[in-house]
């Protein structure tokens, strides 16, 4: 088995299914502490690439309207983007990621481009 295939299978078994099951069982997105998530976002240097409010930059845009929490956590564990580090649960526990997701989910939408005169020059 090629290493990449093995990793993909391991990912599904180890992370995606349990998360999906957890979500299915509760029927709702995991609850996190947005305030603590904001603190962790800075402490763990996520802001360095994704911006203080997750709007993106060198890293992908994550807010407003982040992807589903389970997908967010799964991606952090096994990112497909070539420059995104892999964070194991030993480094950033699921609880921390849920808090960060809650923070990202709390970011309000910006005005649209047509509502910003400077972007209509």
């Amino acid at each position, binding site marked *: 088995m090629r290493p990449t295939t093995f990793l993909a299978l391991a990912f599904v078994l180890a992370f995606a299914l349990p998360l999906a099951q957890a979500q299915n069982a509760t029927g709702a997105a995991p609850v996190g502490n947005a305030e603590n998530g904001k603190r962790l976002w800075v402490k763990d240097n996520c*802001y360095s690439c994704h911006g203080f409010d997750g709007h993106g*930059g060198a890293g992908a845009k994550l807010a407003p309207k982040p992807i589903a929490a389970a997908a967010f956590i799964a991606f952090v564990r096994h990112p497909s983007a070539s420059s995104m580090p*892999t964070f194991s649960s030993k480094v950033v526990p699921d609880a921390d990621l849920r808090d960060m997701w809650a923070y990202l989910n709390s970011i309000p939408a*910006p005005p649209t481009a047509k509502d910003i005169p400077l972007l209509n020059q």
Partner: protein
Amino acid sequence: MASKNSRGRRSFLKGAAAIVGTGPIAMAQQAQVAQNRSVAAPGETASAARVEVLTNERPGADFMLEVIKSLGIDYVAANPASSCRGLHESIINYGGNKAPELLTCCHEESSVAMAHGYAKIEGKPMMSMVHGTVGTQHATMAIYNAWCDRVPAIVILGNEMDAVARRSFVEWTHSAQDAAVIIRDYTKWDDAPSSLQHFAESFVRAYKIAMTPPMGPVAIVASGKLQEEPIEEKDLRIPKYSPTISPQGDSGAIAELAKLLVNAENPVIVAGRLARTAYGMKLLVELADTLQASVNDQRNRMNFPTAHPFYNTGNIANADVLLTLEVEDTFMLTHRMSPLNRIGMDPARRITKDGAKIVSISSLELLQKSNYQDFARYNEVDMNIAGDGEATLPILIEACKKLITPDRKRALAERGAKLAEIHTRNHEQSLAQATLGWDSSPLAPARISAELWAQIKNEDWSLVGNDGFFGRWPTRLWNFDKHYQFIGGSGGEGVGYGAPAAVGAALANKKYGRFTVNIQNDGDLNYAPGVLWTAVHHQIPLLTIMNNNRGYHQEVMFVTTMAARANRDVSRAGIGTKLIEPNIDYAGMARAYGMQGIGPITEPKDVGPAIKRAIEIVKRGEPVLIDTVTQGRG
């Protein structure tokens, strides 16, 4: 009183002919006079009384300066160096400190980086003058950047090869057998002339080599004795400079390439360091319009107008013909690695589709060195045309035009219309992305870029800083349509280039009355901030916007990656990578150097008024710095 044995004293016959006149002919004549005079030997009774002469009104440096002047070099950037003192004095007195004018620099790296930025605007080199040892060691990084960026620069290295002519221990530590050896791996050519005529020929040769594509830095070692001793050589003359005609790609290969391009369904053109001049940019537009083809601009030069409907519309994975013009790294352009991190890295995967033809036109094929690896991976293409891209485009355009039938022209126009739609979508996407973080504090680069554009778009502006660490927001939001509006980056990614290159470029823009803007990374400025003083001292108008993200955030990411991979504490990645505790006061730093400093600006609403105030200052002919506190990486 100095000893009679003091070095540097020379004995001449009393009544030797007074030296008059300037210029090479006059100097040659004076050299003849010096040759004809007789010198009384020790113990000999001379007919004329022997007197000690402590002055020398015709030092060799005067002739060296004539050579430098003959090539139209307008500036010499230098931190004062005793090994260049002869030339220094000739520049300011014999030459009247005009063409070339001496620019006072606080670091040799600044001297060469200023020359780097200047050359990319002015299209010709300025000269830098450094100690052959300690100054060259300081200048190495900037010389390497110029090498990687294929930019002409002429560096004079002061040195004293004659051991008995060294005045002190310091001159021993400041002398070398082979002063240029430490930069030889990343200069096109160097020499250590042993006579004034040798200097003349080597300097003109060096200039010619620097200006021949692929361009690059050159070095001339200027002997201290040669600078300071009287001119004694006869028949000195300055060789005629005739620019080398830029090498053009083979006409047969170009005809074959034209067939490929005209018949291609989805050609993509990628421009690297292509447009050396405004003409190069015009040619690329003509080629794109002729073929109705996408142009992906790597932004190492101002190659293509950002508002052109074909700008950055190419999808390399879909290309059936990929034409690279002065592109350094075709491999990375045509391959992907996943993940990028070395552990677990899969072999690079080619992204071009089967059967796609890849053709390269580049002058880099004509110059490769082995030690530093800036040549990148092997250039595996279908056709490799050695020649300068800009010089080759006219025959390529002509060959393409001859092959386009009316039917083909209609088909190409349909493709052009589709590309224009992609361009419009890309622009709309950029605008939508610019809204993200619009009201954030720290400031989003997109917001600063939009605020700047609103206030400079009606000026004759020139952006002389690379926007790569600024999310490329100026590139995405502004309308770049003139060659001098963008000059790319450092080339070697050696930090410390930004501020001095911007000052050099702003100096070049000054005589054209252009409004110069630099987006300045904070880490970069801290290498040699004394160049702010140079800008003030020489009254170089320049608006500097600090990208003050308080750290080396690319390195934050790398160290975070390493920590995450090792299952260790990622929160410690800020150690050694962030510029906090204390925060650096860049407006205060500017003021310390005599420059007007505004900020720190942390709130979006304050950006526009700060820019307005700064523009007024620049229009008075002064440099100014605005410290904007920004997000991490765009």
